[in-house]
């Protein structure tokens, strides 16, 4: 706990230094100082925080009370297993993204107030750490608000572009609509518990009241987590934000929403047991998010939008884990509960590693080629082999291929769902197995999507001149990528240890867990062994292939072109053509819009074809909704005519009305 507090203090210190630096004129000496001191402070604080997380037992709750009070509440903090789990990505990615951001901003900063940027970055990391440890409603809400506001300024880094400004507005509105619901949630909890910290001590409630709180939490936190149908801010905000910010937002911040839902569940003690529909609701919402996310992702041609939708998918998978856990608890099947909860946490930690890596890679592509549109890329693997390898590792990890880390989470979740086969009630069996089938579809589509993302962006021939001559990343740009890439491989090989760590954080007594964790650890050990054996076989085959080719006549030549040896790079498959078979099946869900113009006649002169998949939910549901609100507000403006005597009339009318009301009562 002490180390953790020191880390927080260091973050506060860094933030105040940066705040001061952002207010003075930006002379070169100050800029240099900020460039070095800002990220260094953040990295140091994150390292300290990380050390703090592994200091002390994960099974115990370590409380700490700030000696000063806050208005309406107290500064109560506590570290327990759940908080530690969710803090891992915050500190890990916080440091890596700061490193990467420092490397890229150092060369590319033109006219930005860098100190302000790092100030809000520090604030975000600090607020995240506070949100995940706060044990008081008011304190939690203040931290939450800080956490929601600082990304607005981070996303708006390139605020001279209209699309960026719009994206950050979408983010701000979504964040605050969620916050309004959370305000209601905490107010209700305060009302029920009697004090601002009562919720965090556990509330005993009637099923109706508990369900009301649960729904409020689900909507409020779900908006932050980017669950469908509240995900629309994600695909807007991520492409607009600088990549190191996207990585942190996607890998660490949206987890806060999941944390909220998870924490709420552990705190609500419902008389007569948790209602059955909670778990099903989470499972269904998770599956829906996963399917929506991946189907939308497969239709995107902007790499960062694709990654953003993939975050929606992965949050869905995590929520499915949580839902499975709840169902297991409710039906009294502790094995399923253990697997479900563990899957949620394992996948959360793994997701931070591979999604952080992929966003940082996307950022490097953006620096190198000035675009992340897949149909303008190609051939980058040959030109930037290390960046390509990092992206390949991330892509293989995110589609849950063994021996990388993504597999562990999905394996545990799928095993939990499959255990449903042994349950006596048919409805529960069918529900769990249907969810597993959905998960299989999601993972298959994810494989196709990331084969597209990596294959079109990095492989083949460059489609544009920019892609053919990219601005190569320096070693400083590539070193930060090594950390999450190593985490992808390392966490995959340390899956049993990761599971053991996470198991201590589960909301279940250890004696209940023990009989279920041992066999799973054994299974994961076998998975790791098989993975290692596979790597050995690959190594042997590579050596054999090299040996075979050394003795034989080999040559380099251009790709076989069906007789046309002078093909252009434009005849390659593009992202849209790659997705075409899926588009045919999922056209309704994908919402793909095709615009094509072709000249009729024997000698076509000009033809164009473009395909995009805008978010239909945003266009069809939210846009009309906000339009209606705006029209309503416009209609209200009628009373604001600007004539002073009319305003006096209003006052008079109000006075008379008040008098009437007062005397009539």
């Amino acid at each position: 706990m002490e180390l953790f507090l020191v880390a927080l203090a260091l973050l506060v210190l860094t933030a105040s230094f940066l705040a001061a630096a952002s207010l003075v004129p930006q002379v070169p000496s100050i800029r240099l100082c900020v460039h070095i001191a800002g990220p260094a402070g953040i990295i140091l604080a994150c390292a300290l925080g990380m050390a703090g997380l592994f200091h002390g037992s994960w099974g115990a709750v370590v409380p700490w009370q700030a000696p000063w009070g806050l208005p309406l509440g107290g500064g109560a903090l506590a570290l327990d297993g759940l908080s530690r789990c969710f803090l891992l990505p915050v500190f890990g990615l916080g440091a890596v993204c700061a490193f990467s951001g420092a490397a890229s901003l150092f060369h590319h900063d033109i006219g930005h107030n860098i100190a302000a940027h790092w100030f809000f970055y520090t604030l975000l990391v600090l607020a995240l750490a506070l949100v995940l440890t706060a044990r008081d409603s008011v304190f939690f809400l203040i931290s939450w608000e800080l956490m929601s506001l600082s990304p607005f300024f981070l996303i708006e880094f390139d605020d001279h572009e209209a699309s960026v400004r719009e994206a950050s507005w979408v983010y701000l509105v979504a964040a605050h609509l969620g916050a309004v619901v959370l305000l209601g949630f905490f107010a209700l909890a305060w009302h029920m518990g009697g004090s601002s910290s009562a919720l965090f001590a556990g509330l005993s409630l009637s099923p109706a009241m508990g369900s009301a709180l649960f729904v409020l939490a689900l909507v409020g936190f779900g908006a932050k987590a980017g669950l469908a149908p509240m995900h629309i801010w994600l695909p807007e905000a991520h492409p607009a934000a600088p990549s190191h910010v996207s990585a942190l937002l996607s890998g660490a911040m949206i987890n806060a929403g999941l944390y909220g839902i998870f924490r709420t569940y552990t705190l609500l003690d419902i008389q007569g047991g948790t209602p059955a529909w909670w778990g099903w609701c989470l499972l269904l919402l998770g599956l829906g998010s996963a399917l929506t996310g991946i189907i939308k992702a497969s239709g995107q041609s902007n790499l960062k939008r694709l990654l953003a939708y993939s975050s929606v998918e992965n949050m869905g998978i995590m929520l499915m884990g949580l839902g499975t856990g709840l169902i297991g608890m409710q039906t009294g099947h502790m094995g399923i509960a253990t697997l479900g909860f563990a899957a949620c946490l394992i996948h959360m930690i793994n997701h931070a590693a591979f999604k952080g890596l992929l966003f940082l890679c996307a950022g490097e592509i953006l620096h190198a080629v000035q675009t992340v549109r897949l149909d303008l890329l190609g051939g980058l693997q040959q030109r930037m082999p290390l960046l390509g390898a990092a992206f390949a590792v991330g892509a293989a990890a995110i589609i849950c291929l063994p021996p990388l880390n993504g597999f562990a989470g999905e394996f545990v979740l799928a095993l939990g769902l499959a255990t449903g086969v042994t349950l006596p009630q048919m409805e529960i069996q069918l529900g769990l197995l249907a969810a597993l089938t959905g998960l299989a579809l999601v993972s298959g589509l994810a494989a196709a999507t990331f084969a597209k993302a990596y294959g079109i962006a990095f492989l083949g021939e460059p489609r544009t001149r920019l892609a053919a001559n990219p601005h190569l990343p320096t070693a400083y740009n590539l070193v930060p990528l090594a950390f999450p890439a190593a985490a992808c491989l390392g966490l995959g090989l340390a899956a049993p240890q990761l599971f053991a760590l996470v198991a201590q954080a589960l909301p279940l007594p250890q004696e209940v867990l023990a009989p279920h964790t041992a066999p799973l650890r054994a299974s994961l050990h076998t998975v790791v062994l098989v993975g290692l054996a596979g790597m050995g076989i690959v190594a042997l085959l590579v050596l054999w292939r090299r040996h075979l080719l050394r003795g034989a006549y080999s040559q380099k030549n251009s790709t076989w072109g069906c007789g046309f040896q002078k093909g252009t790079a434009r005849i390659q498959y593009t992202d849209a053509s790659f997705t075409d078979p899926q588009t045919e099946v999922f056209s309704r869900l994908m919402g793909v819009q095709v615009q094509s113009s072709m000249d009729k006649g024997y000698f076509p002169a000009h033809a164009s074809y473009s395909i995009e998949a805008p978010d239909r939910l945003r266009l069809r549901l939210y846009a009309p909704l906000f339009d209606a609100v705006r029209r309503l507000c416009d209609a209200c403006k009628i009373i604001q005519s600007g004539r002073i005597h009319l305003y006096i009339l209003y006052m008079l009318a109000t006075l008379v009305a008040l008098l009437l009301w007062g005397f009539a009562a």
Partner: protein
Amino acid sequence: MMPTALPFWCSFALALCAAPLLPGIINRVKAKFAGRQGKPVLQLYYDLAKLLRKGAVISTSTTWVFAAGPVLSLATVFVALPLLPLGGFASPFAFQGDFLLAAYVLGLGRFFLILAALDTGSAFEGMGASREAAYAALAEPALFLCFLTLAGLGADEHIALHLSLSTMFTGTPSLAWLEARPEVLLLPLVLFLLLLVENCRIPIDDPNTHLELTMIHEVMVLDHSGPDLAFIHYAAALKLWFFSALLAGIVVPAIFSNPWVQLAVNSAAIAAVAVLVGVTESIMARVRLPRIAQLLGGAGALAALALMLTLIR
């Protein structure tokens, strides 16, 4: 189920040695149907030996991914194969949920083969890669439904490893249908269809066509030559063995007391599956590409039906 490791490893060795026979058998059956003499049954062995001795032409567009495709596709099948109960004997690696590992490991090989195809920058190979990715995604739920049905058939918490391939594919369904559970008869049907999809046979894909526009798997490997092509051919043969072994595992009952008889019967069943594939290829035409998705959806629906009916018992 025999707890003997020796027959299992013998079956594994047999799989490694005899897998290239299966395409030979298929081709022979097709030739007989067409009234031709046909290639020798051992043709693939000759091809492999020749390819391994030859050099390779490697496209200048490619990177290490191009070389990784064949290597990984072979290595993953090597890893996935011993997870199966080969020859009717439980795998020594069996654990709860090994079906997930097997499916994902095969997915890894497929992923890199797709990437290797995209690496060449050829429009044809992109075409094959795109189709392979889409149809594999659609086949996955059906495969999982099959596994779950088999798990549900012997579902009992008290059986250790009830969620393992070694319990699912050791002959339970071959007798279960006689005990008034005919829905399990759907499983061989679905698995056979999945075998055709995963191994790119008619009516899904035609391995012998010379029209690149209509192919799936063969068009992905147009640019591979020499040892790379040998790896791919051998991996494809092993994968065919893998799926045939799945089918054999559910139709051959585990009733033989002598392990070697069990092994022989299982191997005969695998050969019979190859003959069946040959017959199917001879009497059916390739379906149009949009129909493949429907076919897979139908397979999924059948598997779901089997699962539901299994669960309510």
